[in-house]
């Protein structure tokens, strides 16, 4: 998590009897993101009876708790205490790790590559070049199964979602939608445009954590040929040494 000397202020909203939504709504999106992730880290580390955990995304955090043990009022106080701590000590810094992800683009591996190229009015090669041109910050873990949610490639236009979402997208699918990018760790239904697939196993349900990356880590794609797909079979996604 990058350090933020001064977290942005947050607002706390009721979200039922077993959760609170914490929102950072300053004009600085980067600062909002670091604030909610730093706060999630503080809540995890501090631990409080009855608090199950926190789910940070872009500018918000869902804090879930057991209303038999604690209450919305107590958890709100705990969250505000965390904010005062962060104001005082600053957010802890963690050096991001880097992940390199081989991708077979197009064809059966990326059935929507040409659709995306057409929409962006760019050649397919240029779509691949833009998708592999930079490292992406993993912003949060999303559904399904801890997907790495990233700010998307520098395409000219946002990518529309599929009109008819697929009932099943394979594990390893590399997809884009709007201004976001993602890898699907597990087979699931999906409405994002699939432009490629990685042969690496992202999800490992036999180990903890189930996915190797955390929000704040960096991820970069590089193209491989279809015939190389099987040479990676059985290998897991791991941070570069």
């Amino acid at each position, binding site marked *: 998590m990058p350090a933020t000397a001064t977290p942005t202020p947050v607002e706390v909203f009721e979200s039922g009897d077993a959760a609170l939504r914490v929102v950072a709504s300053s004009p600085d999106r980067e600062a909002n993101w670091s604030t909610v992730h730093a706060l999630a880290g503080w809540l995890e580390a501090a631990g409080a009876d009855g608090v199950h955990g926190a789910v940070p995304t872009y500018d918000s955090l869902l804090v879930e708790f057991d209303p038999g043990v604690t209450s919305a009022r107590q958890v709100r106080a705990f969250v505000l205490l965390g904010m005062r701590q962060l104001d005082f000590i600053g957010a802890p810094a963690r050096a991001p790790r880097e992940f390199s992800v081989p991708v077979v683009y197009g064809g059966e591996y990326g059935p929507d590559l040409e659709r995306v190229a057409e929409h962006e009015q760019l050649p397919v090669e240029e779509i691949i070049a833009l998708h592999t041109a930079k490292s992406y910050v993993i912003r949060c873990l*999303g559904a399904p199964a801890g997907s790495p949610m990233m700010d998307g490639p520098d395409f000219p236009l946002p990518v529309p979602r599929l009109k008819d979402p697929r009932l099943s997208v394979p594990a390893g699918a590399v997809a884009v939608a709007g201004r976001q990018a993602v890898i699907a760790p597990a087979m699931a239904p999906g409405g994002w445009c699939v432009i490629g697939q990685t042969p690496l196993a992202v999800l490992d349900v036999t180990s903890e954590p189930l996915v190797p990356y955390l929000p704040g880590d960096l991820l970069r794609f590089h193209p491989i040929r279809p015939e190389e797909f099987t040479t990676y079979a059985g290998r897991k996604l791991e941070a570069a040494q």
Partner: protein
Amino acid sequence: MSGSLVIQQSGNSVVTDLGRFRGPRFGLPVNGALDQFSARAANILTGNADSAPLLEITALDFRMRATTDILVAVTGAPLRLTVDGRECQQWEPISVRAGETVALRQITGGLRAYLAVHGSVEAPVLLGSCAPDTVIGFGLRLTDGTELKTSRSVPPIRQPYFDLPLFRLGLTRPEFSSHAVVEVTDGPDVDEFGDTADLLYSTEYTVSARSNHIGLRLGGDLPERQSGAEVLSRGVPVGAIEVPSRDELLVLHRGRGVTAGYPVLAVVTTRSLDVLAQARPGHTITFRRTTVPDATAKHRAALRELENLRSTVSTVFALLGIGSRPSWQQFAPAAGS
């Protein structure tokens, strides 16, 4: 003594527990028993920890045979419960002998039943929970012939007067009806729906057949979002009510994806999530607005009821020597000793 449960007719059944509470931070839904009150009660009635693995049986008939003498309890939706053909009571412990068949038939009124076994059953665990996760393909879904390992046997306990129920522990059972009143609190995004939010409280909704453990889809007059601004993905609580389409209301349950980009209109209370867990397709639902403190108080009242049950069960089981040596042996030495 360890033994096993041999599943003869699996219907639609899984081994689950109260849920994977550490899951959401890793992007995994909490999952677990949809009717938490019934699941806790079944475990308590068999002397287990609330969070012990147990069977969740949804909608379809179920049958199993025990290879050792065991103690079970069945809670949740009303059904016809028999042990080797003898009619038995739900919501009470039942002694089952080795070789006998336990059958759950005609689940009516509700949708989900829970079957707990004293000493529980073995199941694989992920992040501290055995709850199945259909998205990542984890968990124990039962099929005909599955054998579940049990860890403890309980010698047969039977009324000398045949067919009289053995226990009368007196838990107030939840009510089951084809029309449910579900309590909700205002969601964090209620203002986005303007005046149309009130439709939620004046409309009778019908449960669609496309409902499952991820969410219930309800047909009826729908509140409409007044703004079209893009919503960044954010964590959504179990119980969140969203209006993702013009056709149906979506009420997220324990299998929900942890993040989503739809505004949250209202959130179902913890207590009422159990009511929703029992709503069958075609059942009708009306929503009633409540407050977070009131919802918390109702949840805690239900937990107190379960605590009272736990203390009754532990007294009765101690006298009968279930889970330990019978305490009556201390008072009544055997003749001749």
